[in-house]
């Protein structure tokens, strides 16, 4: 049974324009999927359906075989979403309090919340910033904070929406390293990006969305040569196969 599946997922805006149309795809537990597409292709709309932030006009999303509408809180615990703008995700006045937001919503006991927060912060290496103002963190650290906030919910799947936007080189390395570690510890990763060269080498699969439709779904090495026709940039210069497409050394 796939851990995540969509069937005929369609979303039509009130003005009649289709954001996504008949998206069928499934993800197996432990997979690392890269979802690519040009701006406006419908990537963000698609992933906002995966945890029920948007409601499909037609079609369904299943997590571990159950439709997500059945128990939306459970679904959102299982699938954590890291938004593109890490800054707008901050809802706490301190780093620790921000991470606590999720577990507090689950109405866990204060002691339990404290333990989970400490664990999550340790996990991403932000423990010593626990009492700091989150807005004073660097871009990479803010992204890590967002990850900690999601980890505190103990999800199985983690969705990243354009995790590298606006990050400098060290920031990208920090975040990419973190993503790899999460994958190694058994999380299923779905990563939305148009910057294939930073991450594709680590992916098990490459899915391309174009004008609201799923147009390619396969092994990265097979799919990526065709990516450019859908508006996804392939790095210039010498490409030594998909293996070279990472910023990690």
């Amino acid at each position, binding site marked *: 049974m796939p851990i995540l599946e969509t069937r005929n997922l369609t979303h039509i805006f*009130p003005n009649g324009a289709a954001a996504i149309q008949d998206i069928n795809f499934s993800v197996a537990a432990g997979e690392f999927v890269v979802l690519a597409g040009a701006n406006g292709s419908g990537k963000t709309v698609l992933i906002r359906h995966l945890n029920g932030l948007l409601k499909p006009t037609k079609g*369904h999303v299943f997590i571990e075989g159950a439709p997500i*509408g059945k128990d*939306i809180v*459970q679904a959102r615990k299982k699938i954590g979403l890291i938004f593109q703008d890490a800054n707008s995700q901050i809802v706490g006045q301190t780093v620790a309090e921000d991470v606590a937001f999720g577990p507090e919503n689950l109405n866990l006991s204060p002691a339990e919340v404290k333990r989970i927060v400490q664990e999550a912060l340790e996990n991403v290496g932000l423990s010593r910033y626990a009492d700091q103002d989150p807005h004073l963190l660097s871009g990479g650290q803010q992204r890590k904070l967002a990850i900690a906030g999601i980890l505190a919910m103990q999800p199985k799947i983690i969705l990243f929406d354009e995790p590298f936007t606006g990050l400098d080189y060290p920031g990208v390395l920090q975040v990419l390293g973190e993503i790899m570690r999460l994958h190694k510890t058994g999380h299923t990763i779905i990563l939305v990006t148009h910057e294939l060269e930073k991450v594709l080498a680590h992916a098990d699969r490459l899915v391309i969305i174009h004008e609201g439709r799923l147009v390619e779904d396969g092994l990265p090495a097979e799919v990526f040569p065709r990516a450019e026709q859908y508006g996804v940039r392939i790095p210039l210069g010498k490409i030594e196969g998909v293996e070279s497409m990472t910023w990690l050394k």
Partner: protein
Amino acid sequence: MSKQSAVAPMNLRMTVYSALFTTLIIIGGVNIPIGPVPIVLADFFVMLAGLFLGPKWGLASVLLWLFLGVLGLPVFAGFKAGLAVLMGPTAGFLPGYVLMVLAVGLLAGIGKPSWARNTLALIVGNILLYPPGILWLKMLLHLNWPTVLAAYLLPFLPGTVIKIVVAVALGQTLLPRFKQAVSEASWQPANDNDEDEQ
């Protein structure tokens, strides 16, 4: 629902917008010079709260602002302690803000949206803003009418006119987009209609 229930997305959204307008009102109270004369924009954002959020959530914004002041936080224009302002000479203007946001929200919500209707709502709102404040000042400082009006009404009138014009203009440009965004979010309630999935 047996398990934890999520908050209706529409309510959450309006809660966030409402808090945001409180923030804007507080920031509007920080004197920021646009041009030679410093302009306080708190009243301007109160007008916008009524126009954009309607009477209920607009009122929530203003009440939260006043409440933070009651707690002693420095949220009122130019002053460093809220509670002291609540007892000071300009305190009378604060209930005026409540009247204003209610009037603007209610009047702007009646009938078909138009700039004329918004203008009317804003003018009525501003007319309601001044009387309590001026009465309070008159009593506290033992001034006569001409002095009070010359010192506390006339200097603010040109600014008020400008603010109304800008608010109406924003009502024409931004408000339709805002309303659409809000209705889109409510058009697709993410977890309101869980039942239909079962």
